[in-house]
């Protein structure tokens, strides 16, 4: 494995009381590439995600994020909202967390909160209607419109997000995360609950995010057709440890991976073997 790494996870450990959820996990995600984190249910994937995005504080290990300019940030030392604000790591959730009572456009405007706060002079300039803020708001609306177009929801911009169909909510959540203009986009099971057609559209969307915008993506996914099709690199976890990593082809043929999936769930094992071939 060579190349420019955006994320380096080094000997990450997470314990909840006596339960070890993640142990001695090391992997890296390359810049402008899609890295997938897979594994049977309960392998500790979401725990790793929560450590990277600041929702948990890791019990041990280091998580380093290197920005384009070369500055490196220790994510395990940043907490809470600062990971999204300073380290520019955006995430989506396994169980979609939109703002259901706000419109699609408003959801995307909230995502640009920090940029707009600066533009509004921390509210004071905005309150008196300074022209600079109006310009910034217009640009924010343009960016939001652009993303609504990309995820094919432009005609529903003024509808409440809570009224959207499941697949649309998933796409809107990705658009909202992208409106924070992240360096690393973390997606927690973006294809869960999507039908085959929606999954294909999702793959296309993620590839376009990687190729056109150069955003690095880290994703957890169970839908192997998506994982095998779009991932550049796959990390396989089971019971809190890494059991394999490599290209989709390498991982698919790895006997340890097949054993882990066979031991966990026959359907998933079959999916691993068939997916992407």
């Amino acid at each position, binding site marked *: 494995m060579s190349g420019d790494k955006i994320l380096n996870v080094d000997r990450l450990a997470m314990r909840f009381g006596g339960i070890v959820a993640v142990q001695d996990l090391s992997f890296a995600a390359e810049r402008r590439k899609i890295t997938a984190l897979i594994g049977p249910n309960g392998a500790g994937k979401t725990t790793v995600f929560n450590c990277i995005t600041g929702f948990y504080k890791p019990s041990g290990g280091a998580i380093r994020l290197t920005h384009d300019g070369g500055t490196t940030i220790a994510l395990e030392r940043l907490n809470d909202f600062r990971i999204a604000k300073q380290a520019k790591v955006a995430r989506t959730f396994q169980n979609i967390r939109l703002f259901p009572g706000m*419109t699609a456009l408003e959801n995307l405007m909230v995502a640009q909160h920090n940029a707009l706060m600066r533009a*509004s002079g921390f509210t004071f300039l905005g309150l008196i209607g300074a022209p600079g803020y109006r310009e910034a708001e217009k640009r924010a609306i343009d960016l939001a419109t652009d993303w609504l177009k990309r995820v094919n929801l432009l005609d529903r911009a003024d509808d409440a997000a809570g*009224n959207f169909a499941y697949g649309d909510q998933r796409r809107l959540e990705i658009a909202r995360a992208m409106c924070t203009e992240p360096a690393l986009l973390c997606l927690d099971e973006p294809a869960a609950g999507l039908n085959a057609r929606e999954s294909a559209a999702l793959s296309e969307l993620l590839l376009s995010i990687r190729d056109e915008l150069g955003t690095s993506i880290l994703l957890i996914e169970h839908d192997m057709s998506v994982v095998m099709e779009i991932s550049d690199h796959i990390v396989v976890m089971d019971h809190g440890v890494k059991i394999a990593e490599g290209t989709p082809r390498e991982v698919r043929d790895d006997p340890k991976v097949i054993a882990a999936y066979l031991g966990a769930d026959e359907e998933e094992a079959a999916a691993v073997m068939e997916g992407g071939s």
Partner: protein
Amino acid sequence: MKAPSTHPIKPATSIPALLKTAFVNALIALVLFSLMIGIRTEAGSSGQLTYWTRFGDLASIVAAVFGGSIVIELLRQWIGPTGAEKLVPPAVQSGISFIGRYLAPALLIFTLLVPVMFYNQRYILDLAILVLTYVMLGWGLNVVVGLAGLLDLGYVAFYAVGAYSYGLLATNFGWSFWICLPLAGILAAFWGVLLGFPVLRLRGDYLAIVTLAFGEIIRLVIINWQDLTGGPNGVSGIPRPSFFGIPLDNSDDGLAARLGIEYSPTHRIVFLFYLILALALLTNWATIRLRRLPIGRAWEALREDEVACRALGINTTTTKLTAFATGAMFGGFAGAFFATRQGFISPESFTFQESALVLAIVVLGGMGSQLGVALAALAMIGGFELFRSLESYRMLVFGMAMVLIMIWRPRGLIGHRAPTVYLTKAQAISSDLVKEGHG
């Protein structure tokens, strides 16, 4: 609004079931009222307990419940199953939005004309000032509860801080109302932040309880810090507001003398009316404006989903603090107005009752809705006065009206939410989708 014909009709309840329901209700009534109505106790002439029974009254109450529950059950079947029609037809919706668009300006024009129309009716003017004070308090609390979704049961604390700030600054240093007004707001906001820091880690019920305690602490401090606040005796002799330096009194340099018109005490009342109206409109303007700024959107996003806010890089602590401080500041303004209007303040004016009343206004109005809060303040304060002729049944009628409104409109008078930004068309968002917040 006719129920669709395809709706499955519930089979009529059989007579034995009907009787059974009525019997159970009557039994509950018997248990409940046996002590309350069945036995009457009183202190005798030498302090001993005397009591006598009123089984006749008890029997008639129980019989009324028995009969009443049969009638209600029959009525219910006649009206049809409840909750059959959740969706409001588009025609009705557009009608409501049409009324909504013109109701607010109409109300504003009416309010502006109140002193003209009721110039000689001091009672109505006083009541209007009271209503407007609660409108302002409601709008202030609406920022905290309605927008940011933080349940604040101690809002009266900031009202008290504002009132005492003006009262003490004016009586001790002789500062004018117009200097003290912003100071009262700033001090209240400061206390809002001070309270916010330790408290905002808490969520939901816990936050509500701590804010409730904070409201009581402020009141107890005011009662006990006698050197500063005068304790239970309060602060008296608080100067009346001046018309930007010109006193509104009977003196030679008073406003009436300067304008060359005959002095009347009503001038001051009318001035106070327009003063609170201006303050309330300022609150409204600021809130509407803030909602469309990133900070206001962040408040609403916080109410919808705090975890998602954090994932988007929003500092939830400062966002909550600004909501608290903004609400507190408006409470402080209202407090300063209260002090100058009364001329006398004491801890008795700042009890939990007031917090509960303002919160009830916000909830009844529909959390987050400016117009709803104004209507609710009118209904709560004005309505309460309306029932004055009913004397001891006033509370009963009022309580029943509240219960009926909460059954009819559980999300408040105006439950839907207007979006803060739109591409093509702003459409109201149904209250079913909007979250109440959880602390």
